[in-house]
């Protein structure tokens, strides 16, 4: 679960990490008041959960309270990468001497957390990695011993700091590690963490992504997933969340349903290979009941862009008869206005085939054959 910048900064601040003076606002008037309170030029930042917000015009600068009111009014009535801005963070402009990067994240291949830093902050870490890989510092965290003060100092030193600046910066890194661990973070990032012209360090921007699997024990965030992401989720995505379906919206016109993440991805790939364009990724998971199957079908059919639905089921734990029943259920409820291509093999295949065949719905054996057929229909239909 991604947190908004202002939420991440609240947490950092609670742990004693310096963040810019400022406030969250939802109206231009509040922006003016906040800027008046700050008594310095401000930066006005749209609170949206997308990368590259700055380039997309989501960050504006204002040298007076009046300008802050104007800028925030502009942002509050705009969309950033298609997402409506609902709140804005108004903060003091820092006098920046240097922008650094620091994050705690998961190192998959080393099966541990890793601290990543760079003296080239302010841009995406991948860009730093591409442009100046030698400027990326990585320190693996031993899960049994943790990230300790000397690790933090080692990084601060490699970033070019000595003496009390090294120690101050290291203390901030240690605090961020505590945030990451306490919040079960997948990524906890300060980018940039700024060295001000007075030589102090301030987390000018912050990102915090909580491990979804750990939300159950993060009482502060538990149950807020839908609410927080609400503004950016399509109705299908919301529906999928409620039904426990793994759904990702894509930009084509062939609706896809399958069981198993890898199989569904391979199904999308196959559609593409035959010249088609999938409208979504939808994994019903293992052992889906007829109800879940019906919900999935409903969901895909509710997407008006979809011209044809390709259902690809390879039954292992999932039983073909349950799938077949789910398809019929959905048919009875909403009727099918769009063509269906169904590939159904595996556990209880015979019974599943019988159910669908009796209902006049044909079934295919091969995934590739089915993909080709779906693409053909979509082209005709499209």
């Amino acid at each position, binding site marked *: 679960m991604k947190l908004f910048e202002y939420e991440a900064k609240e947490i950092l601040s609670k742990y004693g990490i310096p963040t810019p003076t400022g406030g969250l606002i939802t109206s231009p008037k509040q922006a003016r008041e906040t800027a008046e309170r700050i008594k310095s030029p401000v930066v006005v930042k749209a609170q949206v959960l997308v990368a590259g917000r700055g380039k997309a015009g989501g960050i504006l600068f204002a040298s007076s309270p009046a300008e802050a009111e104007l800028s925030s009014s502009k942002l509050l009535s705009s969309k950033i990468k298609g997402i409506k801005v609902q709140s804005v963070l108004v903060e003091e402009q820092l006098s920046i001497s240097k922008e650094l990067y620091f994050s705690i994240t998961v190192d*998959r291949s080393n*099966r541990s957390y890793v601290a990543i830093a760079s003296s080239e902050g302010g841009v995406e870490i991948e860009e730093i990695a591409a442009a100046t890989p030698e400027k990326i510092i990585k320190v693996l965290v031993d899960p049994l011993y943790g990230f300790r003060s000397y690790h933090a100092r080692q990084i601060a030193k490699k970033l070019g700091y000595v003496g009390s600046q090294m120690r101050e910066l290291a203390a901030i890194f240690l605090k961020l590690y505590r945030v990451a661990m306490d919040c079960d973070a997948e990524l906890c990032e300060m980018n940039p963490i700024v060295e001000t012209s007075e030589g102090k360090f301030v987390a000018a921007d912050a990102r915090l992504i909580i491990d979804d*699997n750990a939300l159950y024990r993060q009482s502060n965030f538990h149950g807020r997933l839908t609410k927080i992401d609400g503004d950016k989720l399509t109705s299908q995505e919301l529906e999928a969340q409620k039904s426990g379906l793994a759904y990702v919206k894509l930009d084509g016109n062939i609706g896809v349903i399958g069981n*198993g993440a890898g199989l569904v991805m*391979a199904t999308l790939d196959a559609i*593409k*290979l035959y010249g088609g364009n999938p409208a979504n990724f939808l994994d019903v998971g293992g052992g889906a009941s007829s109800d879940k199957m019906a919900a999935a079908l409903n969901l895909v059919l509710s997407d008006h862009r979809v011209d044809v639905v390709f259902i690809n089921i*390879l039954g*292992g734990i999932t039983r073909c008869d349950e799938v077949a029943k789910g398809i019929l259920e959905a048919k009875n409820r909403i009727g099918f206005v769009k063509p269906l291509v169904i590939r159904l093999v595996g556990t209880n295949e015979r019974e599943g085939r019988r159910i669908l065949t009796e209902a006049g719905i044909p079934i295919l054996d091969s995934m590739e054959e089915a993909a080709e057929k779906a693409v053909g229909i979509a082209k005709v239909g499209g």
Partner: protein
Amino acid sequence: MGIFVNASTKAIVQGITGTQGSFHTRLMLDYGTQIVAGVTPGKGGKKVHNVPVYDAVEEALQKHEADTSIIFVPAPFAADAAFEALESGLKTIVIITEHVPVKDAVQVMARAKHQGAVVIGPNTPGIITLGGCKLGIMPVHIFKRGSVGIASRSGTLTYEIATGLSTMGLGQSTCLGLGGDPVVGLSFVEVLKEFEKDEQTKAVVLIGEIGGDAEERAASFISNKGYAKPVVAFVAGRTAPKGKRMGHAGAIIMGKAGTAQSKIDAFREANVSVAEKPSDVAKILAEKLKRRKNIFGGAESER
């Protein structure tokens, strides 16, 4: 013989009294797997499909000899279950459980490494060594005993490809899922090493997907050290968008890292054949084995 598990593997089932645990215990027993005991805290004294249930791993091991555990307990308790198995000295732990927090997985893997134990999963369909031992939730009818080793990051896709192999007469030695999470116990490299040592295994199929760099590392391992057995790869997710989790917690392209193309390129550079479609895997492999047979003039040892 296959790798990690075989006919002499003696396993316990942690979480045996749950719906999943109980259901799959029956299927594993049906396959001939030696399930010697089950563990569910608070349910000690019961029996599940005639397998005795204990409150703790330690108690089970006082009564039964075992070397392996398969874990079906809910995610919040999975790490502790793995710790318990490790503390009791079990050497192979299969964690079927989905949705285990990364912080927990990291600790389990650290402890396993300290003790020299092998963890398969979490979020894996498990492992099956054909004709010997199934510790997992995979359907068995799609497999066939033979000499192709399969390591995969995806469940159903594995079944898809295994079905293709079986249909073409290319049976399997061991088939295992690494797990769909960002942090899992085994990498392709480690499995490749095991398959290389395994006499039964004559060829290897790797089934990858977007996210992480396990495939790139496997490619680099093969290209650096050379690999004695033919390898065919398939990578799912060529059409996956950036920054979206595709069903698996681990299947996500972060920034520019972890794309299918990067993985496919790496495999090709390492001279590993990459199949375009799942059904191509069997075709490519059959071709490779035929050529090899022609070169060496030998017959395949198992069919």
